[in-house]
Structures are given as structure tokens and as C-alpha cells.
């Protein structure tokens, strides 16, 4: 088993606002290994985006309050403000991003070419390490590198099956369709030759036929280049399509993580099982999960699913540890649907 | 090179000597043009100028002037009688400025060049004031103007920003937004003294405060003469500034609408004359810089009667008011005083009158309007406010300028805005207009003025003193009430 590329451990954070402290992530954990596609699934508002943004370091700073935990990417602490410089060199280079909404994620007043150039100017893999000391606005884009970069860009645009890339570069974002824009975002995520791509619901804004194209493309390119992907989605079908492993979150807590086949066939956490059953194809297509998400302002202690779980007991009032339910399959539940075991020492460190 | 910079409180929007005749723009007329005679000094005196002398015919109608033969215009052309005739006909033709003063006396076509250096004017009837107006016959270079005439405009388009004169200074630069610069005309017929100003600049500086600051800083060497007493006081303290002080003839008064109730009743007018705090106004607001003037005629001019002047006496005013009420009833409508926007003395006077009348239970509204608005309103008895405080300045130094124009029926309603008609007074004024004996005229004017005074036809307040703020270095400013001290050919700078 390859070493972990990204480790999120016990991440606990929230936002302070008018209504008090909204405790969004409560001891969230996730591990991504090199080259694997990790699905981060869960219902709307469970904190998928928040977790993704925490890794990317783009949570709104003024209201953010980090209560604990750690994010480690290839040895770089992605949380501590002390390592800001190291993070800067990781972001956009080793970790890149595909946004949810390709319609609004490109700057409307610059041409696509200008935006790709700017990206390559800063994030090209050919850029010499140890950035120049000149103020950012005055930093030049060396001609030689620009030429090579441009070639790579054209190559990549072809690879994501964008027709007539040279013309495309001269267009403004609003002049191309949503599917093409999302292909573009994929290309831009791949150009810096990263180790990890974080894709936050990259297809929810698209139609099913286009979603199928995009997901296929993403999977193909990622596995061709051995890039790891974190794919957040609330569409279990999409997760099933392209993920290698899946982590489920409920109300800011990870509840279960498993390889894709295990996940769909042997859901061990009660929440996972109920979620799967709620699918129209699932048996409970018209039942759903009774009850509502707990408030982030006053969440119950321990497992946050206890308020909707018929198996809940006193024991659920403390957060259950990550128990092993199978190879690569961990569950945090006091009353799992299948038998689990306490983790062996090694797994715990992983 | 000695330069003089003058800060004026209004714009020199035209240089045409024949279209305007106001004090604000007198500098361009006096310094660029010459008239047949010229007013100098104080009290004003007529001295021969372009004309050497004149004779009047037996019937008093034909005035013949003998011109100098050594006058050249700025472009070197010699001035002849032809130019005088052209200029005078132009004035009559334009019907503006001084032209409209002459129109009632003389018809176009009655001016002839007898020879190159003799001009004769034939009036409709004898006139006592024609002589006083002769300095207003400013002579333009007829050839130059004719050459620049377009569409029969009599050269208006040209003269508005060009000079075609023979005056002491030649136009160097002109900008209607800023003013003008004149360069000394060395060949001027009157010659030059030992010392003189090489260049004069008259600049428009609308803000009083800026003018004063500029004078103190040395940006300007002279200012427009009318300053509020507070400002005069301030300038006095500055060592770089001298204040020339002269008797002047500018009477500040309330024109009262005599034709409209309740002011059509003498008792009520008496209320008004006793309700104004003359002392407060003169001593406090004007800081004693002006002299009480009991009638419309300036006290320092001949023809002014010796009358004591009304005083601020509310008790007496109350008596008159009671008398009025006994006759006309208790009810007295709200009166309206029109003031001149931007002239704070008129506003303060109005406020003081309002205050006095308020203590008698009479309500007053003040409406402030720009001069052109109020002036055009005053010229119609319908729209004339009940009272308007303003100045009557010297257009010509003759009592007719004041008592005649303000209270003679001949001038109603344009200048006699009070709607005052008194047959006796009219008879005296008319007689004084055609006889030429000054002593006799003086008597007539004194009598007429006394009559108007007794009728309380207006509220007369003070006669202005003239305070000329100049740089200390500037010498020999020859002040004359008519030209307001802006005839610069005499002045010079002494270091």
C-alpha cells in the first residue's frame, strides 16, 4: 500500500458569526494515497466543501476558527500559518483545484489564454524553484519558458478534447459552453503536473450527458498520469463511477471510509446504509432518513448521527474511534451493521 | 516697468464704450477712450479734453465744440470731427449705455461736422444737463470700426473685444473671463507727466475677501472702491496698504412705492422714516464710515437743502401709525422689501427696517434677488416691491441725477421707481432742466427736494464716502466720483 499523500487528522474548525460559533468540522479525518481517486460524499451541508477548502487554504479568514487537527501534504503542514511559504509553493503546483461551477470560476474579463498564461507564469512545472524576490506584479515571464509552456498548454487542451485550442485561447469565458469550460478547468488543474487534484463537485452544474463525458475524462487523465484526486459529490452514482475509495461525511464528521466496492455492497455505518437505501434505485427510495441534520451551533456531543439513528445509545455520546471493517475499510460507529475490529497499530498511524 | 494691477468686483465682459455706462466697467472706457470733456477731481470738475472749448447758441439748442487737432488714435490715424459724429450717431443708434440718455434730448442726424475740427449738436430743446453728459461722448476711430462692421452691427462684434480709441492706454490683452491689460500710449495728446504707469491690468476678482487678501499680499495694487466698513478697517491696519478717503456722491436710500397702499398715505410713510435705526446702521454696521444724508441729494452737492433728517423714533412712528390706523383701519398687510442679492448692506438695511417695523406690529418679508431682476421689477409699478434699499450713484454730477431722476414724473417708471408724482415738484424739476443759471437751478432743486422730504417719499440714509484701497507705493490717484478713481493716467508708483 502506497504511503499517504495527504492526511487530514482530527480536523476541527468552524466559523464565528452573528449566531455564535458554527462548529462545522468536528474531528474530520481523511487519507489520500498517491494516484488514487478518493470520493468525499455526504449530504448537502455536511462539510465537504469546507474540508476541501481547508486543504486548499481558502477558507474565509476573518470568521474562521481552527480548534485542532492537522493537514499534512507530503510533509508540508497545510494548516499552520507558520508554513505559509511552503504552502504557497504547494498550492497550484502539487495540489490543484477544479471548482464546482465552471460558469463563474473563470475571470470574466480576461481571455482564457491570458488566464492560462498567468497560471503558467507562476505555476509551470518548469518554473525554477525559489521564486524571485521582485514584487509579484513586476515579475517577468521569461520568454523561453513561455514558449515551452505554450506548447504544453496546447497539448493539454488537445488531451481534454477541446476543439481548436488556438482559437479558444483568444476567447472570453462567456463565449464557451459549460462543458468546455469544465474541460478547461481540468486542463488547468493538470498543467502544473500536480500530485493531487481537488475537484469539488465538478459536474453538478452540468447535464448528465456532459457529466458522463467529464467524469470519464477526469478518471482517464488522472490514472494516466498517476495523479490523486479528491472528488467531492453528493451524487453517489458519480462517486461509484470513478472513485477508488470513498469517505462519507455526516454533519462535519467522517463516518466511514472504504474502497468503492466495499462501500456500496457492505455499508457498515448506519448512516451509509440509510443513504444508499434512499437512492431511487435503493429500497427506501420513498422513505429517506427521518429527522433533520443537527444544528452546527449546538451539535450533540460524540457521533452527530445519533439524533437520527435508531441504534443510538448512551455510548454514542463520545466520538467512536476508527474501527476496521475490512481491508482499507474503517468505520466510526459504536453499533456498526457488520462486525468491526479495533485498528491495528499500523493502520492507526496511516 | 511699472505695473498696476486692479482687482475689480465684476467682469469686463465688453470693451465697447457705447453699450454700457456703469461704474463697474468704467475703467475700460476711461483708459482706452477719450471724451470731448472729462470729469476730474472731487468735487467733480469738467476739463476740456478732446474738445478745446464749446459755445452754445442763443436758443440754447445748438452746441458747437472746437476739437483739438493733435489727437491720434492708437493706430496712428488722426482724430477729426467725422469720428465724433460717427461715434455720437453710433451711440444714438445702439440705444444702449449713454446713448439712451441722449436720445430724449437729440434725434439722430442732428450732429454735424462743421469742419475737420468743429462739431455741432442741435438739441430738441435747451438742456441744462447736456454739458454734464458731454464727457460720455467717447470717440472711436470711425475708419477702423467701419472696416470691421459686419451685418450693420455698427462694429459691435468688433468693439466688444477690440479697442479703437485714442485713450491713455492701448489694449494689449483681453479675456472676458479675466480682464484686460493696457499698455501706455506714449503719443497720447495730453502728454505724460514725469512718472506714470507703463502697464495697467484690470482683473476680475469676484470675491471681496480674495481682493482684500490679494491687496495685502501685494498681488494687486488697487481694488474696486466699494468695501464694507469691516474690510476697510482691516485694510487700514496693513502697512502695505493705503486707504484714500474721499467725499463721494452715492446716496443709500429706500425707494418706497408711493403709489400703493399703505405707502400712498403720508402718515404711513412717516412711520417708515421713523422706524429705521439710522444711527445703528451708520455707526455700527457702517462703522461711522458714512455720513447721514437726510435727502436724496448728496449733501456735498449744490442743490441739497438744509433739513435735519428724520430720526429713529419708534414713539413718533407709533403716533403716525395710530393716525394712519384711525383713518384706514387696524389691518396692515405684510410689506415686502426687495434686496439686492450679493449686496449685504442692502440685506442688513432691510433686516433693520424689518426689525423696526416688527416692533410696531408690522410684518415685513424680505426677498433677495439679483440686481437685474429687481431692477426690471422696479421699473414697473405693478412689480415694484414696497421698498427697495439701494444706492443712487453719480452718473453726472448734477442734482437732476438724484432728485430729478428719482422723483420727477418725467423719469417714471424707469428711474423714478417710487411712483411719486407731485405736480409742484415736477414743475420745479422741469424748469431746472432747461435753465442754465446754476444759482437759480440750485434754489429750484433745494425747494423740490425739501418738498419730497416733507412728503417722506423715501427713506434716505447716508451718502457714501469713498475709500480707495491701494498699495502704499501708488501715488497720485486722482479720484473723481464719476470715474471712481479708475482713470489711471495720473497715477505712478514710487518705491
Amino acid at each position, binding site marked *: 500500500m502506497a504511503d499517504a499523500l495527504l492526511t487530514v487528522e482530527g480536523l476541527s474548525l468552524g466559523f464565528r458569526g452573528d449566531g455564535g460559533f458554527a462548529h462545522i468540522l468536528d474531528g474530520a479525518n481523511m487519507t489520500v494515497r498517491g494516484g488514487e481517486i478518493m470520493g468525499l460524499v455526504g449530504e448537502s451541508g455536511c462539510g465537504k466543501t469546507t474540508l476541501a477548502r481547508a486543504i486548499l487554504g481558502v477558507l474565509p479568514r476573518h470568521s474562521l476558527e481552527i480548534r485542532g487537527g492537522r493537514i499534512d501534504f507530503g510533509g508540508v503542514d497545510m494548516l499552520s500559518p507558520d508554513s505559509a511559504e511552503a504552502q504557497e509553493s504547494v498550492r497550484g503546483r502539487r495540489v490543484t483545484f477544479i471548482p464546482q461551477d465552471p460558469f463563474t470560476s473563470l475571470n*470574466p*474579463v480576461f481571455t482564457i489564454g491570458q488566464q492560462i498564461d498567468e497560471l503558467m507564469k507562476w505555476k509551470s512545472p518548469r518554473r525554477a524553484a525559489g521564486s524571485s524576490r521582485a514584487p509579484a*506584479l513586476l515579475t517577468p515571464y521569461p520568454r523561453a519558458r513561455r514558449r515551452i509552456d505554450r506548447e504544453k498548454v496546447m497539448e493539454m487542451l488537445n488531451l481534454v478534447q477541446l476543439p481548436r485550442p488556438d482559437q479558444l485561447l483568444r476567447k472570453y469565458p*462567456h463565449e464557451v459552453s459549460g462543458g468546455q469550460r469544465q474541460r478547461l478547468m481540468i486542463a488547468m488543474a493538470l498543467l502544473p503536473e500536480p500530485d493531487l487534484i481537488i475537484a469539488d463537485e465538478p459536474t453538478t452544474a452540468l447535464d448528465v450527458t456532459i457529466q458522463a463525458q467529464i467524469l470519464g475524462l477526469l478518471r482517464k487523465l488522472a490514472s494516466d498520469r498517476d495523479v490523486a484526486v479528491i472528488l467531492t459529490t453528493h451524487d453517489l452514482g458519480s462517486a461509484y463511477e470513478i472513485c477508488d475509495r470513498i469517505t462519507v461525511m455526516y454533519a462535519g464528521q467522517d463516518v466511514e471510509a472504504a474502497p468503492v466496492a466495499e462501500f456500496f455492497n457492505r455499508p457498515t455505518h448506519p448512516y451509509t446504509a440509510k443513504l444508499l437505501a434512499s437512492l431511487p434505485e435503493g429500497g427506501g427510495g420513498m422513505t429517506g432518513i427521518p429527522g433533520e441534520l443537527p444544528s452546527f451551533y449546538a451539535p450533540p456531543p460524540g457521533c452527530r448521527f445519533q439524533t437520527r439513528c435508531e441504534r443510538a445509545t448512551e455510548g454514542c455520546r463520545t466520538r467512536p474511534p476508527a474501527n476496521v471493517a475490512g481491508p482499507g475499510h474503517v468505520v466510526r460507529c459504536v453499533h456498526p451493521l457488520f462486525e468491526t475490529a479495533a485498528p491495528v497499530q499500523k493502520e492507526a498511524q496511516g | 516697468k511699472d505695473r498696476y494691477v486692479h482687482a475689480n468686483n465684476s467682469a469686463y465682459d465688453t470693451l465697447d464704450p457705447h453699450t454700457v*455706462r456703469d461704474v463697474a466697467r468704467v475703467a475700460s472706457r476711461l483708459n482706452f477712450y477719450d471724451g470731448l470733456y472729462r470729469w476730474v477731481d472731487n468735487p467733480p470738475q469738467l476739463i476740456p479734453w478732446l474738445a478745446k472749448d464749446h459755445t452754445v447758441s442763443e436758443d440754447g439748442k445748438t452746441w458747437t465744440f472746437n476739437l483739438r487737432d493733435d489727437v491720434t488714435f492708437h493706430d496712428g490715424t488722426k482724430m477729426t470731427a467725422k469720428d465724433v459724429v460717427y461715434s455720437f450717431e453710433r451711440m444714438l443708434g445702439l440705444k444702449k*449705455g449713454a446713448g439712451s440718455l441722449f436720445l430724449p434730448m437729440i434725434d439722430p442726424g442732428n450732429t454735424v461736422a462743421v469742419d475737420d475740427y468743429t462739431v455741432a449738436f442741435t438739441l430738441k430743446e435747451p438742456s441744462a444737463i447736456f454739458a454734464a453728459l458731454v464727457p460720455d461722448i467717447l470717440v472711436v476711430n470711425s475708419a477702423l470700426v467701419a472696416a470691421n462692421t459686419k451685418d450693420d452691427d455698427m462694429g459691435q462684434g468688433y468693439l466688444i473685444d477690440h479697442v479703437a480709441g485714442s485713450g491713455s492706454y492701448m489694449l494689449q490683452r483681453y479675456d472676458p473671463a479675466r480682464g484686460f491689460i493696457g499698455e501706455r500710449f506714449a503719443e497720447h495728446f495730453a502728454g505724460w507727466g514725469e512718472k506714470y504707469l507703463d502697464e495697467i491690468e484690470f482683473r476680475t476678482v469676484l*470675491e471681496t475677501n480674495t481682493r482684500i487678501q490679494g491687496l495685502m499680499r501685494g498681488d494687486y495694487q488697487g481694488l474696486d472702491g466699494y468695501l464694507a466698513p469691516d474690510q476697510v478697517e482691516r485694510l487700514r491696519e496693513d502697512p502695505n496698504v493705503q486707504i484714500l478717503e474721499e467725499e463721494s456722491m452715492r446716496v443709500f436710500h429706500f425707494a418706497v412705492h408711493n403709489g400703493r397702499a399703505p405707502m400712498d398715505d403720508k402718515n404711513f410713510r412717516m412711520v417708515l422714516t421713523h422706524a429705521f435705526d439710522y444711527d445703528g446702521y451708520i455707526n455700527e454696521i457702517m462703522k461711522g464710515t458714512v455720513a447721514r444724508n437726510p435727502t436724496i441729494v448728496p449733501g456735498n452737492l449744490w442743490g441739497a437743502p438744509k433739513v435735519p433728517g428724520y430720526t429713529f423714533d419708534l414713539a413718533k412712528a407709533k403716533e403716525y401709525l395710530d393716525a394712519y390706523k384711525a383713518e384706514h383701519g387696524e389691518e396692515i398687510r405684510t410689506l415686502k422689501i426687495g434686496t439686492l442679492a450679493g449686496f449685504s448692506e442692502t440685506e442688513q438695511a432691510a433686516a433693520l427696517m424689518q426689525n423696526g417695523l416688527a416692533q410696531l406690529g408690522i410684518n415685513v418679508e424680505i426677498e433677495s434677488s439679483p440686481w*437685474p431682476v429687481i431692477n*426690471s421689477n422696479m421699473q414697473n409699478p405693478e412689480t415694484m416691491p414696497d421698498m427697495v434699499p439701494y444706492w443712487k450713484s453719480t452718473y453726472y454730477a448734477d442734482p437732476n441725477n438724484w432728485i430729478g431722476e428719482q422723483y420727477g414724473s418725467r423719469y417714471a417708471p*424707469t428711474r423714478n421707481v417710487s411712483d411719486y408724482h407731485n405736480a409742484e415738484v415736477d414743475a420745479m424739476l422741469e424748469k431746472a432742466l432747461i435753465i442754465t443759471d446754476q444759482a437759480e437751478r440750485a434754489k429750484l432743486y433745494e425747494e423740490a427736494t425739501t418738498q419730497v422730504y416733507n412728503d417722506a417719499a423715501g427713506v434716505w440714509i447716508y451718502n457714501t464716502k469713498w475709500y480707495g484701497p491701494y498699495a502704499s507705493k501708488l501715488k497720485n490717484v486722482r479720484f473723481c466720483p464719476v470715474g471712481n478713481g479708475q482713470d489711471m493716467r495720473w497715477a505712478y508708483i514710487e518705491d
Partner: protein
Amino acid sequence: MRRLEIILSRLVWFIPTLFGLVFVVFFISNVIPTDPARIIAGENATESQVVALRAEMGLDQPLHIQFGRYVADLATGDLGKSLYTQRAISDDLLHRLPATLELTIAAMIIAIGLGVPLGVISAVKRNSLIDQVLRLLSVSGLAVASFWLAMELQMYFSTRLGWTPLNGRIAGWGPEDITGFYVLDSVLTGDWASLWDAMHHMLLPAITLALPAAATLVRFTRAGVLEVINSNFVLYERAMGMPSAVIIWKYVLRNALISTVTQIGLIFGTLFAGAVVVEAVFDWPGLGTYAVQSILQSDTRAILGFSIIVGVVFIGVNLLVDILHTFIDPRTLK
């Protein structure tokens, strides 16, 4: 081409708007209680002269005929003659236009140079002390009566300290007249003394005029930047680790400027209007002084002309802004 079409369609609005403007101002200004003929005729005119003059000027005609004539004249660039000075109003206005334009442009430059960067800083440092201070200052800037500020500044810097000239555009008569813009003319003629003097004279009036404009710009830029800074594409750029200086001063600012540019168009109009009082205080020989003089002289025609020229400049600037918009916001061409 799309851009041309947009510009044309804007231009087409220009004429009716202008016509409407003339219509409104003309009819309003003819409610006037004065009699123009009497003013022109002068104090000494007789009644018959006034009547004759009235007929000559067409003032005895019904209002709509007068209006028709006015518009016909206007079409040839003739705004009539000043009641008071008898000068052609269009000449007077054109003569003074450079002075006002020079002042307003200077003020605009100050306002933009001050307002936009401060607005950006205020937004970026939102809720910090510097933001609070800037916000307070910008609210204050909008609350000050400019004529009062002009007076106070003049009193302090010119009268008390003597650091700046008291009034006017220049000490002497200025550089050779080429464009009427002293700064430009002095550069063109190499008259550096005049250049310095002209700028020195311009300092206080331009600052007075610029202050409220800068305050507006701070506010709009701040709001614009805040709006953009929360947008998805900024999030994306940040997630991709772009240098924040590039994000703020290039990406964000360019987007924020789209709304700010519209403001700049409007602000130019208000600067022009503000010039009326500020010029009056500093005796700046421009349109404002002319307007104030015309007010004092109740010169209706001149004020009418002034309103029209300000309207033309204002509409023109906004037209320009619209055109500029098609360049900075490619989406307008969609």
C-alpha cells in the same frame, strides 16, 4: 461589429436626451419674472424702446415659436447672446470650458489616484482599523459642503500660511494660448515656469473638488472589490496559489473597475457641477464662475447655455464610459 452597434445605439439616444434637456431647461427658464428686453435695453431705455427690442428679439412670440427658434439656432451651435454682456454665449462658454475641464480633470486624476487604491486597501483589510478609518474618512468626504471646504482651505493655506496662491489659474497671463489648457500649453511651449505656476494654482481647487469624488470612489471601489473578492473565480485563483498581489491588483481590480468606471462617468458630472461653487470661491475663470455671474445677473440665456453645455459634457462622458465599458467588460459585447 457589435461594439460599433452598441456605440451607435448609445449615440442615437444622445440627440433626444439632449433635445429633452433643452426643452425642460428652456421652458423652466422662461417662467422667469424678468423681462430680458428690459435688461438689454438698459436702465435708461424708454418703454417704446423696450417694446421694440422685445419684438426684435422675438420675445413677443408665443413660447413654442421661441423654443423652435432656439433649437434651430442651437443646431448651428448658436446659444444666443448673453442678456447682460451681449456676447455670444457659445463663445463665452467655449472660452471658459478649458479652464473648467483642466480643473475637473486634475480633480478626477487626484480622485482616482486616491480613491481607487484606498478603496482596494479598505476592502482587502476589511474590518481592520485602517478600513474603519478609511470608511469614516470617506463618509466625511461626502458630508462636507465643498464651498465651505474651499473657503476653509483657502483661508488656512493661502491666507494664513501663504503656501498656495489665493485665486485664479495663474499669476500672470499664462502661457501662449494653444489649447486653453495651461498645463498642456506650457508643456507644448516649454514654458516650465508657467507649468509650475499653473499647477500650484490648481492645487487647492482641485483637491477641494476631488475630495468628495475620491470618497465616492473609495466607497464604490471597496464595495466592488468586496463583491469580486467573494466571487468564485477569486476563490479559484487563490486555491491555485496565485500571488495575492496579482489576484488583488490585477484580477480583482479589473473586475471591480467595471462598476467603478460607471461611477467615474457620473462623478465627472458631479465634479463639473461642483466646479460651480469651488470656482466661485477660487475665482477660477471657468464655466462655474460664469454660471455664478450669470446667476447674479439673472442672465437666463447664459444659464440655459451653461446647463446645456454641462449636459452635453455629462452625456458625452457617460457615452465615453459606455464605450470604455465595451472594452473593459467583454461580456457587454455578448
